[in-house]
């Protein structure tokens, strides 16, 4: 693995190898984290391990919006105070957190778990698009807000969804282009994102 720690005990090198599977973690960071955990109090290490196991054991996808949740349907889908006639489509669960921080959106969500990405071989079937179509076919939804990233994949996904839902006759809007092109929604600040929500446009 080329970590340079030749004489590392097996459990430590195993941890380092696991950590290196995480996004953005290279051999050096993995070694630093592993040695930090080695010296940390046992309670802290155990809490981390349990938190990791919990997300695998206690988290499911909401059968309606496909967001990650502990209870199905999720609290947002269950909340009668939210506007159930409006569904905002996002690529990832983190995008919902960003939109919720603006405090301006009261409708429901739908998480695609990715974007159409022809170069990576990711098409409609790899995303939660069938689930979205089923949800819209049930009726009751009047507006679909497309909040995919303003980049090639986000645009392709929005265009695809727009074309697919056209026969249903819903209002389809897209977040305004106040958002910096090429940026991730997740990184947009609340002001920019709030403005983009207010200025969403008909597609």
């Amino acid at each position, binding site marked *: 693995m080329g970590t340079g720690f030749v004489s590392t005990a097996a459990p430590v090198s195993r941890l380092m190898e696991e950590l290196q599977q995480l996004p953005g973690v290279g051999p050096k960071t993995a070694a630093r984290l592993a040695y930090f955990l080695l010296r940390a109090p046992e309670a802290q290490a155990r809490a981390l391990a349990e938190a990791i196991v919990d997300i695998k054991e206690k988290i499911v996808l909401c059968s309606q919006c496909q967001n990650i949740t502990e209870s199905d349907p999720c609290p947002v889908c269950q909340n009668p105070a939210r506007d159930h006639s409006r569904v905002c489509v996002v690529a990832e669960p983190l995008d919902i957190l960003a939109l919720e921080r603006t405090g301006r959106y009261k409708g429901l969500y739908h998480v695609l778990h990715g974007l159409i990405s022809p170069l990576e071989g990711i098409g409609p079937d790899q995303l939660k698009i069938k689930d979205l179509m089923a949800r819209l076919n049930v009726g009751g939804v009047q507006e679909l807000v497309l909040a995919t990233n303003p980049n*090639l994949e986000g645009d392709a996904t929005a265009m695809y969804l727009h074309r697919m839902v056209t026969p249903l006759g819903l209002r389809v809007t897209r977040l305004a282009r106040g958002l910096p092109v090429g940026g991730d929604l997740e990184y947009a600040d609340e002001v920019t994102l709030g403005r983009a929500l207010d200025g969403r446009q008909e597609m």
Partner: protein
Amino acid sequence: MPPPRIYKTAAIVLRQINLGEADKIITLYTPNLGKVRAVAKGIRRARSRLSGHLETLNHCMLVLARGRNLDVIDQGQTVHGFSSLKENLWLTGCAIYAADLVDSFTGENIENPPLFDLLLNTLSRFEEGQSPELNRHYFELHLLRCLGYRPQLRSCPGCRALLKPVTNYFSAGAGGVLCPNCHLSVSSARPVSSGALRALLLLERSEYGAVGNLKLLPEVSREVEGVIRGYLSYLLEGEARSVRFLDRLRRDGLSGSA
């Protein structure tokens, strides 16, 4: 003399992948350096100077610094973002496919200026609303020509006889169209009508201006598509990934230009 540490180049963005928290590795196609993979630091942050300029399919002007492993993009400015092309789903799919083929067929740092021009002109023609189908096939055939994989369409690669205007047979393994005699000794050859062969020849031998108004009959068009597709996947040992997206749009009835 060592190459300069900082260099400036035009480029078309072929693809990008995320790296770490906020960076990306961008695959570029340049006129004089061929394919270059370079790092764009911090580009995923909303306030990055680079963000927006390095979108996939953009034609841009860049300043890069040589790095130990990958070069680093220091400055970037869009020359043309093909934004009206990107507002059309089918054209976006076709343009992504063109970029995908260039990426799949080229190695890094092998210069091929005609291929750069071909890609740029192809993207421009998609945007100008030229027939996407003709433009796509023209691109495919001329890409093969730029790369030295020109198929033999005039004389039989088996016996060297000039091909007659009858049904002949395309064989990817033979690198061209076999005459009715020679095809018998090859297992997987695909029939090509004389009309399809004429269309292939015309597309392959002409400037775009001379063929841009060509109208292909649906059955000829299907044959041309089949021959080129078979040959490309033979050369790539599999289909380009982006082909599946075009197939999918066709199946969903979204291959129109609306």
